[in-house]
């Protein structure tokens, strides 16, 4: 049994979602090979080779794989698949984009966003926005799987000594090309890997008031998140969204401010270790999952909290 794991990276280092996926692969068992695909991504290989539990690092560095264009990346992976029993990727927007394409090219299904490994062919995954957990057994010869990174601890970044192999074959379908990319610039930690998250909802009132959470977050070294309602109201960009249709987070400390705790939002944050809720409506559903609830006017409580830290 051997596992091909497609790495999430930023051309300089592996993203921690990759390390969590390595842990999932180790739980499945067998040799784990890591594929680094992209354009200008060779630099990632050296640090990837040190990750504990990797047999081999495969590098496919070519302009055709720039920004992991799904059509080309899927073709490449299809060509490598015959050596493997499992193909894994973190359930990032990249993995979600190319993995089902890989599965269909191999004439197999895909098991999406697993949250635990029960055996080499059986996994748990959330359905109905996390309101039910399904145990699913794969009947396919090759198992194509995406992994919910927050459900697995990251593998150690030291201790491994994998060999590095450069792949020469290039798949260029010419079907899609990148026009532009706008990534949010921020010195704060990324939402999906942050230890502390401060999130705001519609109760923040407007864009200007939402910014008071930035100051609180900076004091805590936290990432800032939001509910769908706050995103839809235009307080913050869409990549702030935590919930069923946004990001799934599981920080050590989650502070929810001025948000009611709609099911869709809870689905994205209820695995946080400690949940704090600040809301003036004492009947808000968020208090049913919060470890510490403070019924108060957020416009007084947040500045006070910031001073007390």
């Amino acid at each position, binding site marked *: 049994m051997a596992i091909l794991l497609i790495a999430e990276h930023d051309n300089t280092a592996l993203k921690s979602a990759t390390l969590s996926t390595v842990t999932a692969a180790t739980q499945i068992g067998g040799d784990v090979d890591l594929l680094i695909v992209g354009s200008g991504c060779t630099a990632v290989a050296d640090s990837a080779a040190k990750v504990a539990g990797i047999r081999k690092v495969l590098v496919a560095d070519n302009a055709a794989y720039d920004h992991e264009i799904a059509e080309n990346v899927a073709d490449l992976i299809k060509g490598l698949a015959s050596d493997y029993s499992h193909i894994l990727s973190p359930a990032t927007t990249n993995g979600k984009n190319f993995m089902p394409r890989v599965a269909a090219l191999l004439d197999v299904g895909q*098991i999406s966003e697993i949250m635990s490994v029960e055996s080499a062919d059986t996994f748990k995954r959330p359905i109905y926005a996390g309101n039910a957990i399904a145990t699913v057994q794969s009947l396919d010869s090759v198992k194509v799987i995406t992994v919910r990174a927050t459900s697995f601890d990251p593998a150690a970044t030291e201790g491994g000594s994998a060999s590095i192999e450069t792949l020469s074959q290039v798949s260029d379908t010419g079907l899609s090309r990148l026009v532009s990319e706008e990534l949010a610039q921020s010195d704060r930690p990324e939402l999906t890997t942050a230890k502390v998250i401060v999130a705001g909802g519609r109760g923040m009132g407007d864009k200007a008031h939402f910014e008071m959470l930035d100051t609180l977050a900076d004091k805590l070294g936290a990432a800032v998140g939001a509910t769908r309602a706050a995103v839809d109201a235009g307080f913050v960009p869409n990549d702030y969204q935590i919930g069923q249709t946004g990001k799934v987070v599981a920080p050590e400390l989650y502070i929810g401010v001025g948000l009611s705790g709609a099911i869709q939002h809870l689905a994205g944050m209820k695995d946080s270790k400690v949940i704090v809720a600040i809301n003036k409506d004492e009947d808000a559903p968020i208090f049913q999952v919060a470890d510490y609830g403070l019924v108060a006017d957020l416009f007084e409580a947040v500045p006070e909290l910031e001073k007390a830290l």
Partner: protein
Amino acid sequence: MKVLVTVKRVIDYNVKVRVKSDNTDVDLKNVKMAVNPFCEIAVEQAVRLKEAGKATEVIVVSMGPQNAQEQLRTALAMGADRAILVQSDEVLESLTVAKVLAKIVEEEQPGLVIMGKQSIDTDNNQTGQMLAALTGMSQGTFISGLEISDTEAQVVREIDGGLQTLAVKLPAVLTVDLRLNEPRYASLPNIMKAKKKPLDTKSPADYGVEVKANTRLLKVEPPAERQAGIKVANVAELVEKLKNEAKVI
């Protein structure tokens, strides 16, 4: 250019699902069903393309039980021209659905296929990408913006950390995200008119596709319940608890 759009019949967005007591699945008996919200956005986009003169015909397809006709009628009332129901009472997994859709694409030769990025029941986020693979088409997933020219579609994709703009060659499969548009409500006259629009009923076998299980569902459980904690009286108490009890700051 023809546009093919898909709809799935799922539990209504506002209904809280319950797991059956024997843990075999969720309980969908007597539960309100609706068009999957992402599919509604897909239909809206297809209809807007027709209104803008970019699409000549909007064909809506669903796979599922006979009752899925209701969701097709909703799409027709929103402005789709005709519907195809590929009827089956079996469990239909993404790959099987993609195979049937690939056959319909072969027959209808649409310039664009627009689908929801995922259904809110199984949350798989697969079928569009699979259809693109099976037909060799380009794919634009999780889109929140769309511009069409003669040979390509320019799509804005919602990705981790921001937005990405891709130019994908036509024909293409697009899967839509929440912020692409706000779907219209069908007016009563349009609901009446939709009843007279053509709706073909087919079976997977008509397309030469065998309904195959790629997975076996072993168990469905409710998620671990989180217990409510305590209410603190003020900010000072909150900080004290976080420092000394939870030890997270």
